[in-house]
């Protein structure tokens, strides 16, 4: 699916003031997960924020490619969950491989 299809098709991301906030559904899921886990007390929002600041600061120091905010957001969440032992690196790798191996059409 192209980016244009995502903007106009059934997966159209939420809009506010006519502006796209999430460019792809996964960005909304990542944002929603990070907040929901903090609200449930799994971690303090400040812990997540510290990881996000680290991720963004690393890019600021050495910009590589286009700045993609939700890439940093995703990595910050992943690193925090791994650091707290809430998910395991091996388990995550296996799950990613399993999902990636699904037939095309189930990969969004």
């Amino acid at each position, binding site marked *: 699916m192209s980016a244009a299809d995502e903007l106009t098709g059934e997966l159209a991301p939420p809009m506010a*003031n006519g502006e796209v*906030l999430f460019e792809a559904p*996964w960005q909304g*899921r990542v*944002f929603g997960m990070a907040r929901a886990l903090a*609200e449930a007390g799994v971690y303090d929002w400040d812990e997540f924020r510290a990881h996000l600041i680290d991720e*963004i600061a690393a890019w600021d120091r050495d910009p590589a490619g286009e700045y993609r*905010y939700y890439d940093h957001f995703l990595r910050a969440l992943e690193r925090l969950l791994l650091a707290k032992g809430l998910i395991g690196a091996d*388990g995550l790798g296996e*799950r990613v491989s399993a999902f990636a191996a699904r037939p095309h059409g189930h990969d969004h």
Partner: protein
Amino acid sequence: MSEQDWRAIRAEAIESLLVERGLLDPADVDRVIETYNDRVGPMNGARMVARAWCDPDFKARLLADGTAAMAEFDFGGAQTEKLVVVENTPDTHNVVVCTLCSCYPWAVLGLPPRWYKDPAYRSRIVREPRRVLAEFGLVLDDDVRVRVWDSSAEVRYLVLPRRPADADGLDEAALAQRVTRDAMIGVAQP
């Protein structure tokens, strides 16, 4: 497989593991997205601004303690951070940024626009605010002081814009329609 798909898969894998471990309810994720994106939006902030324009007592309360003044509305959603409202005047213009990441008054403005999170805005609005504001189409007179407020984990800022000169006779609800998200960040005037 595109890079975009790869990130979507990673996000989905994380979510599925968290759900399996009983740490996360997917419905909560839906609720967060809906809360911050669809339901909250910038309209909550606009209602507060419009009331401040109409009600001097409320305006005084809003500027004295934004968090407490916000509680006078039934916005729902959690605002755990302190909300500080800064007022634009004929000689001072306020603009908000988060230089470190993306801190933003979600409870009253919804989710931040893309440019708010970009490195260019985060660094340049501090260094050369007048020039950045001009790029947004907001040209300030030389004698207007610009104050840049850096949001943090503890404090979120909201700009109280100046009431439009041509808004006489409008009621509070109509005024709220005039208040834009960008005006409450401080990069526009209503």
